[in-house]
């Protein structure tokens, strides 16, 4: 058991970035599942703004994934493909009851991703280890993604408040 929050090796860093990729794939897949899962009457009520929000979230996640994959490439490791994660989501997916449920799930997605990157950045900053990937580039990438996750939380919250 290792106490203390710091990333101390390329191996550990790679694993955490791989988890980041899976979290992004989860957001992407769940957003797609939400849109598809709603019954027709709910879907009619599923206004454009919410649909657009989910579509944007999926696009943004795909883009985050690419940025993480570029770092993982430099660490000479692989990632789990989207189709594989999509199939796992498919196997366990229980659709939210209504549009509010979809928004709550989306909020949880964005908040979780933000927390993950925030903890990861803290753990990298607490470490004095040299990594095979340039430290500045690594942190700049993660700062950028964390900022976009923060904006994502704000966007979902705004839509939820408007609907309340």
């Amino acid at each position, binding site marked *: *058991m*290792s*106490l*203390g*929050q710091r*990333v101390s090796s390329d191996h*550990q860093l790679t*694993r*955490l970035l*791989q*988890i980041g990729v*899976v*979290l992004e794939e*989860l957001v992407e897949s*769940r957003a797609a599942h939400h849109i598809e899962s709603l019954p027709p009457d709910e879907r009619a009520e599923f206004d454009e703004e919410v649909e657009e929000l989910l579509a944007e979230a999926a696009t943004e996640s795909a883009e985050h994934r690419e940025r993480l994959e570029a770092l993982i490439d430099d660490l000479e*490791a*692989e*990632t*789990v493909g989207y189709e594989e*994660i999509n199939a*796992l*989501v498919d*196997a*366990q997916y229980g659709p939210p009851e209504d549009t509010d449920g979809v928004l709550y799930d989306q909020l*949880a*997605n964005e*908040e*979780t991703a933000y*927390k*993950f990157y925030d*903890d*990861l950045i803290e*753990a990298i900053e607490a470490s004095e280890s040299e990594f095979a990937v340039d430290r500045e580039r690594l942190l700049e990438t993660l700062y950028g993604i964390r900022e976009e996750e923060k904006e994502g939380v704000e966007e979902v919250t705004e839509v939820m408040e408007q609907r309340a």
Partner: protein
Amino acid sequence: MNTADQYLKAIYLAQRIEDGPASTGTLADLLEVSPASVNEMIGKLEEQDLVDHEKYKGASLTDEGLERAHNALQTYCIIERFLANVLEVEEFRDEARALESVIDDTVAERLDTIIDRPAQCPDCFDAEQDCCELLELEAGGRAD
């Protein structure tokens, strides 16, 4: 998972291994820290009513401590299962130990949506083997 939760989880497992209060030595071994660090933390957990400590016997979880230890062990199981079955990591025990301090409960909850975890979790956790006794391992280690 924060340090307090890692201690509570270790006390829970040590109590199961020793079938009684968790001794400082066992906890120091499990957590790979000094006995002095263990004693210091046990004192803090006792102040929070999460642990009862009896001199020369060891530490036992209170009901509240037990609940938190259960949650912490579930989080740990999620991390192990995710590493073993999704990333197909062979050394998933070692890696789970290395990663647990950096993986927050909310992150583990999301990962839990794509893993197959038994309803009786964490009762099926084998303290000696340091993994769930129902965990099915898949061949290969692609993500390594």
